[in-house]
């Protein structure tokens, strides 16, 4: 069936709510309104107000209450209306949820999913454009995923809901209604911890995730005559699929990492360091990164475009790397 990225998210939640009575969806305006972006349209009507819960504006409570439910064997999906507000629930994620199993010596699981719209390119300004995934990749005990396709959005969310560890699920709002894809009508899962090879190539590897996957794929197609690009969509950011990453780098000898999150302290830094250390002998050029400039994501279109990676910057970076 042909679905948008956001419809894939809605379907994943709908199917899991129907499959397992321990699954709940909690968040601001997720019930009657069906979510600020309509990711949960019809779910409260279908599954009941007890299980699709309109919460007060209290991100810390939403995550903390999710932990309390999880200790009782429930599997709450906790929506941040914008992922920018996840910082209001930061303590509960980092100190309560991520440590829960560890500080209880393995006595309990913590099957929560914290999900919400991240990313820029929609003129959302400072508080509706953020990509804070790197903060969470620094926290042991969490898993972090960021799907780029409708297929993965559905399959990864279903896997996240069934996972016994806390999963932070970054959906990209730029993709919500801009991409439409055929996905299977029958049930499927996408495993957490596995990258996707989006395009095979011999000359260089581009590692990316989220919305930039589509710009990188376009560049790979447009530049096919001059350079044969391998594109890997990381999909899971914690734990990273190092086997796939290193296998590709060892094959091509050149790597560019592209992410929409800021450069400094971004995931690209960790990926680059691992590659530099473990694939040094095979490298045939510098490990390069393209990321947002180290500034907040500004509102005015020209400024936003200046700050975020775009088609032109990706093409330029690929050309520069290919020249080595």
């Amino acid at each position: 069936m042909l679905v948008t990225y956001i419809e894939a998210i809605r379907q994943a939640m709908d199917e899991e709510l129907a499959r397992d009575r321990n699954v709940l969806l909690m968040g601001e305006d997720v019930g009657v309104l069906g979510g600020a972006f309509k990711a949960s349209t019809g779910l409260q009507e279908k599954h009941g107000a007890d299980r699709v819960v309109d919460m007060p504006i209290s991100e810390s409570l939403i995550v903390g209450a999710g932990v309390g439910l999880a200790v009782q064997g429930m599997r709450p999906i906790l929506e941040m209306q914008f992922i920018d507000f996840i910082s209001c629930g930061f303590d509960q994620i980092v100190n309560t949820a991520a440590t829960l199993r560890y500080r209880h010596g393995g006595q309990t699981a913590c099957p929560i999913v914290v999900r919400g719209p991240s990313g820029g390119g929609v003129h959302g300004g400072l508080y509706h454009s953020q990509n804070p995934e790197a903060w969470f990749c620094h926290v042991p005990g969490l898993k972090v995923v960021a799907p780029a396709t409708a297929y993965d959005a559905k399959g990864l969310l279903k896997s996240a809901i069934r996972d016994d560890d806390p999963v932070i699920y970054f959906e990209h709002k730029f993709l919500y209604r801009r991409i439409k894809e055929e996905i299977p009508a029958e049930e499927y899962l996408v495993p957490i911890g596995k990258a996707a090879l989006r395009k095979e190539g011999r000359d260089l590897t581009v590692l990316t995730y989220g919305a930039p996957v589509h710009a990188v794929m376009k560049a790979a197609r447009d530049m096919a005559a001059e350079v044969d690009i391998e594109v890997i969509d990381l999909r899971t950011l914690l734990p990273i699929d190092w086997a796939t990453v290193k296998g590709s780098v060892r094959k091509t000898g050149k790597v560019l990492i592209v992410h929409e999150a800021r450069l400094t302290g971004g995931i690209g830094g960790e990926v680059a360091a691992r590659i530099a250390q473990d694939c040094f002998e095979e490298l045939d050029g510098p490990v390069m990164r393209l990321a947002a400039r180290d500034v907040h994501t500004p509102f005015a279109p020209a400024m936003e475009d200046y700050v975020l990676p775009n088609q032109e910057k990706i093409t330029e970076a690929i050309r520069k790397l290919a020249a080595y």
Partner: protein
Amino acid sequence: MTEQKDRELYRWLRLIREFEDRTSALDKQGKLMGGVYSGKGQEAVTVGFCHDLRWDDWIFPLHRDLGAFLVKGADPKRLMAQIFGKRDGFAKGKDSYLHGGDLSNGIFGSTSCLGATLPVAAGMAYKFKIRKEDRVAVAFFGEGASSRGDVHEAMNFAGVHKLPVIFVCENNFYAYSTPNELQFGVDNVADRAAGYGFKGEVVSGNDLHAVMKTAGKAIDRARTGDGPTLVECKTYRYHGHSEHDRADYRSEEEVITWESRDPIALWEIYLEKRKYDIAAIRKETAEEVTRIVEEAVAFAEASPSPAGPEAMDDLYAMPIDTEAR
């Protein structure tokens, strides 16, 4: 109350006091690493709220509520091993003191961000409510934590859904060194309950009768669907915030005033007025609690210290390949 229950309550008060005193002594002897947060002086609060709970109810103790662990059913031996940071502790050495709860007995371990357990308790109570389970959650917090947003968020949500949760504020007048008058502008933390649409009560936290009466009503309200209660227990910690804190910010007179309202001494006066054989009760109880704590310390000392690589256990349901090096 029956003589049997009166004596049982006394036994709990004394066991907690013995456990607290021994923990402080072990700390002085250099046998414990990490912070020790004595709840000495506050025993009536935890006994009063935990004694009549059922095994499948849940408690969310704060950092100085080892008494709540004991009364709710934690094995004293494992609790002492937890305090020692040994493998037989609830956290298997991954953290000490009360950060590792005993989930098999409905005891949730707190983090150091005090008040952060209240949203968790509210979430759990929400599950009890939607599944129509006859269970309650009791969340303890200090008056210092009452300033935190988490406390407000949890109480607000509990009020919206009339959740079976009891919020117990242990107001011991100091958050580390910060006195009540620099912590909040209201007379009582419990006054805030009105803002959440449920009942708030202030009780003398050193008077076990008063605590039990108020706790009983609050637990009944929660069980019968009448929603949450905020109970503020005015009490006092004899020691500093932790054992290294000399608590010079308090006057000697103030400390002595509170010591003269000691919850255990008050209970002994009651037992005496009931004309029980107080001398015999004292002696028997002392022997029993000393033995229990001795055994707990021996167990904890004998428990193995976890080996370095055990640090990587219990992080995820299934180990993930982190290529840790």
